[in-house]
């Protein structure tokens, strides 16, 4: 149940992030000076936290989305599968977020 509302919440958060992404592209193309300032904002602690949250939202929404598609073809609808699937989604999202940010922060 919590995972269900999380799917919706992450979706909305990602939509807001998508607006930011378009803004980032627009600045990159038309206002390089402002682009640099925007990136500096993203590099602050708050900015990095937001990006990290957005990364988790993305991987969670993607993983849970796959789970939804799985249900759509009629698979995994029993209680046990639902529980296992839910845990898997959280683990996958957390791991992917961790790996992504490890790479970003250590420059691997």
């Amino acid at each position: 149940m919590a995972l269900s509302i999380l799917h919706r919440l992450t979706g909305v958060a990602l939509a807001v992030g998508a607006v930011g992404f378009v803004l980032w592209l627009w600045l990159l193309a038309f206002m390089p000076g402002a682009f640099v300032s925007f990136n500096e904002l993203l590099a602050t602690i708050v900015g990095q936290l937001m990006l990290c949250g957005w990364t988790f939202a993305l991987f969670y929404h993607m993983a849970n989305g796959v789970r939804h598609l799985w249900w759509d073809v009629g698979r995994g609808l029993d209680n046990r599968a639902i529980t296992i699937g839910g845990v898997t989604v959280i683990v996958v999202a957390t791991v992917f977020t961790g790996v992504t940010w490890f790479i970003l922060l250590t420059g691997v």
Partner: protein
Amino acid sequence: MEYMDPLAKARGTGSAHYGGSHWWGQRLSSVALFPLLLWVVIELIQIAGHPVAEVRAWAAQPTMSLLLILAIVTLFIHIQQGIQMVVEDYVHTPWLEQTTQILVRFSCWVLAAAGIIAILKLLFSESQL
């Protein structure tokens, strides 16, 4: 692809009299976004923190431009579909719901167009082709 029974379709049963194509469209945009966004994220990780000139050159590559445009269009189709569901669930005043849905759709158009224009600008001003 039509899932509705022809007779049911003719009778227009179901409260909305419509919806199958929305369901299918949402599945299609989800499936398409999966590889597209993964690819975009991987690329962004590689280009993060690089100087502006390099980021511009990166975005202007033909394959990157193609990927970004596909990702943006599919993304805003998916976003419109998803937000539509949220509005349907929480806004029940008819005129407000209609207006919100329309505004969301228009906004997605504007944002997608802005993204495409930005990418094309980079493609044509930075590319060596």
